C-alpha cells in the first residue's frame, strides 16, 4: 500500500466564494449550544437502548446460526441478525461513543476512553487517526490521510499514476475487506512496515506498539468469529464459520458504502495545507461543511448508518450525540443557504452513483 500525497494545487481555493466566517461561526455555535442544553436523560436512555438491541441481535444471531441445520432460513436470519449487531456496534455505538458523544454520562462503559468495538481495528488507533487527524484536518490534502486512504485518486490534487487505471477494482477490494483497511490505516499512514518516514509528524505511539495492537486486536477478531464460535457449534462448524464470514462481509460493505457517500461524493471539496494555517473557528466550520455530504433516508436507515447519513452535521459537531443531528440538520441547512454555501445532500442512490462516478472519473488523468 503506497500513498502519494504530493499536492499539485491545481484548484485555486481562492476561486470559491467565501462566507462571512464570524457570522457563520456564531450561527453554528448557537445551534450547537441550543442542542447541548437539551442533551440529557433521553440521550442516555437512547444509547442504552441501542446497546440493548445490539446485544439481543448479536446473541440471537449467534444462536440462529447454529440452528441452520433445522431450517436454512434460520441460518439466513442468523446472518442478518449478526450483521445488524455488528453494524450497530460499529456505527451507532462504537463510532459515536468513541467520539466522546456520551462522555458526559460519566458511565465507565459508555465513554470514549474505555470503548472498544467489534471490528479488527484497535479502538485507540482509530481514535488517533480518525478523531484527531481526520476530524481536525478534514479534507486537507497531505494532512487528512482519510482522503482516498492513500489508495484511491479522488481529486486532481493527486498526480495520476498507472495504478489509478484499475482503482475501481481496488475500491471493491477495499470495501470487501473494509475492517482490515481501517485497521491497517494508521500503520500504512505511519509507514510502519516500509516506505519513507515523514518527519513532520509527531509520533505519539511507537511503531512496535502499533504493530502489537494491530496483530493482537485482529487476531482476537479472527479467533472469535472463525475459531471459537464455530468450534462451539461442533459438527455445525462450517455453518457458523460461513455465517460469520458473511455477516462480517455485509458489515464491511455497508460501512464502507456509507462512509464513501459521506466523504467522496462528486461535490465534496478538498483543501490545501495553507487553508488551515491560523484557521478561525468559522473557517474550520466552513471546511468541515464542504468536505462532507449527507444521505437522505428513513429512521431505521439513519440508525444503521450511526447517523453518519448526517455527515455534515457530524463533521461540524462531532461530539454531540448523533441522534440530535436530525434536529440540527434543517437549521444547519438554513444557515448554509444564507451564506450561499452548498449543502450536499441527496438520496442514497444519487449519492452513491456520484461516488462511483468520482472513483471512475479520477481513474483517468
Amino acid at each position, binding site marked *: 500500500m503506497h500513498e502519494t500525497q504530493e499536492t499539485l494545487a491545481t484548484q485555486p481555493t481562492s476561486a470559491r466564494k467565501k462566507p462571512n466566517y464570524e457570522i457563520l461561526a456564531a450561527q453554528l455555535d448557537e445551534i450547537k*449550544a441550543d442542542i447541548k442544553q437539551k*442533551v*440529557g*436523560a*433521553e*440521550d*442516555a*436512555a437512547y444509547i*442504552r437502548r441501542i*446497546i*440493548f438491541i445490539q*446485544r*439481543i441481535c448479536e446473541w440471537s444471531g449467534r444462536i440462529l446460526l447454529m440452528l441452520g441445520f433445522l431450517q436454512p432460513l434460520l441460518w439466513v436470519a442468523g446472518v442478518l441478525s449478526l450483521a445488524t449487531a455488528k453494524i450497530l456496534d460499529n456505527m451507532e455505538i462504537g463510532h459515536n461513543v468513541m*467520539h*466522546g458523544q456520551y*462522555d*458526559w*454520562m*460519566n*458511565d*465507565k*462503559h459508555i*465513554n*470514549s*476512553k*474505555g470503548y*472498544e*468495538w*467489534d471490528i479488527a481495528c484497535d*479502538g485507540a488507533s482509530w*481514535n*488517533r487517526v480518525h*478523531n*484527531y*487527524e481526520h*476530524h*481536525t484536518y478534514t479534507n486537507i490534502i497531505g494532512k487528512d490521510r482519510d482522503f482516498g486512504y492513500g489508495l484511491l485518486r479522488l481529486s486532481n490534487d493527486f498526480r495520476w499514476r498507472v495504478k489509478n487505471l484499475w482503482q475501481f477494482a481496488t475500491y471493491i477490494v477495499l470495501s470487501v475487506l473494509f475492517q482490515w483497511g481501517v485497521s491497517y490505516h494508521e500503520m500504512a499512514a505511519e509507514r510502519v512496515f516500509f516506505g519513507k518516514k515523514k518527519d513532520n509528524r509527531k509520533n*505519539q505511539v511507537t511503531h512496535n506498539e502499533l504493530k502489537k495492537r494491530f496483530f493482537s486486536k485482529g487476531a*482476537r477478531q479472527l*479467533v*472469535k468469529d472463525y475459531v*471459537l464460535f464455530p468450534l462451539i457449534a461442533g459438527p455445525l462448524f462450517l455453518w457458523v464459520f460461513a455465517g460469520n464470514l458473511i455477516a462480517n462481509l455485509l458489515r464491511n460493505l455497508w460501512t464502507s458504502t456509507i462512509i464513501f457517500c459521506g466523504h467522496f461524493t462528486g461535490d465534496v471539496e478538498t483543501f490545501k495545507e495553507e487553508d488551515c494555517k491560523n484557521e478561525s473557528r468559522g473557517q474550520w466550520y466552513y471546511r468541515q461543511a464542504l468536505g462532507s455530504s449527507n444521505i437522505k433516508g428513513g429512521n431505521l436507515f439513519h440508525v444503521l448508518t450511526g447517523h453518519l447519513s448526517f455527515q455534515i452535521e457530524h463533521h461540524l459537531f*462531532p*461530539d454531540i450525540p448523533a441522534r440530535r443531528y436530525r434536529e440540527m440538520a434543517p437549521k444547519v441547512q438554513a444557515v448554509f443557504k444564507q451564506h450561499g454555501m452548498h449543502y450536499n445532500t441527496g438520496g442514497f442512490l444519487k449519492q452513491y452513483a456520484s461516488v462511483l462516478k468520482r472513483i471512475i472519473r479520477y481513474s483517468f488523468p
Partner: protein
Amino acid sequence: MRLLLDKFTDRIFHHGSWKGYWEVLMQQIKPAWRDGYFRARVVTVKNLNTHILEVVLEPDSSWPTHAAGQHIALTIELNGRLTTRVFTIASGANTHQRDKQIRLVTKVKAQGALTPYLHTCVPNQWVNISAPMGEFVWPQTEKPLLMIAGGSGITPFIAMLDDAINNAQVNQKAVHLLYFAKPNEHVLLEELSTFSKRCESFTYDTLTKQRDGDVEAHLSYFADAHWLVCGPHAMFEQVETYAKTISAPVSSEHFAALPVVSHTSLTESETFSLVHNGQSLTIDNQQTLLLQLQQAEQPVTYGCGMGICHQCQCVKKRGVVRDTRTGELSDSAEQLIQLCVSQAVTDVEIQL
C-alpha cells in the same frame, strides 16, 4: 471465576468486564445494576429542617455492613448523568443488621450537584452506592471520649452512639458531645436525648458560636479525653491546634467547604496546584492544563488541541475546571475532562 470471565470478555467481546458487557441487558430486569457499584433501594426521603434531608436506603444483601462512622459514595443518575457524592452513614451497624437499612443525613447545598436533587428520589427507586469506606470509627482507647461536631458533622457521631449504646460500650466510659450548629439548625436532637436517657455516661451540649463562642473555649475541660472531631475545616483546625498545645489525642474527619468560584476571578492570574499521578505541579488559571503539563514536560497524550478529538481526555478526581470554549464550570467531583480546553479554577487532581 470472575477474573477469568473478565479476561474472556476482554479478549473476545472487547469489554473491560463480564458484568459490564451484560450491564444494559441486566438493567432491564434490575434497575441500576452496575459494574463496580452496589445497589440500594430508596425507602424514604424527608426533610429534617429546611436545610437538612434524611434519606433511608436499603442496600442489596451483598453490601458489606459498615462500621459506625464510615461513609459511602452515593451515585444517582440525574438527567442521564451519573452523579456521585460522598455521605456519612448516620446509623449504626446494628441498625443495618436489624432493619437492613442505612440512613444518610445531609445538608442540602443550593449550588450542589447532587443534594438539591435528592428530594426528587422516590420510594422504591434504585440508586447506586459504594462499599463503606473511611477510618473515622470508634477509637480503641481507655480514655473518656469527647466528640466535637460541627453542622452536618454530627452524622458519624450519631452512628457511633447508635452502636455504642446498643453494645453497652458507653457504659464503660464517659462520652461527651459538643454539637455546634447555627441557631435552630441542630438536627436529630430527639435521638440525642434518647441516647442520653438510655445511657447515663453519655452527655451532650448543643452550642452555637454566637452564644457560646468558638470551640476552643470549651476544650480545656476535656484535656484528659480522646477527642473526635468532625466538621468544617476551620473548626477542625482550631481543635487540632489546641490539641497540639496540650498534646491530646485526636481522631478527625473534616470536610473542606466546596471551593467558591467566581467568574470575575478569571481575569486575575491565580495559581493552583495540579496533582497528577502522585506528582504535584503549580499552575495558573490563564493557560490550559494541557499547555502547562507540556511546559512541565510531563507525558501527555493529545491531538487537535482544540477540543475535538478527545485524545487529551483524562479523569479529574477533584477540583473545578473551566471549559475555555464555553466558560462552563465543571462539577467538583470525579469527571472526564479534556485537558486542552480546561483551565483550573481551583486546585485540581487528575489521573493521566
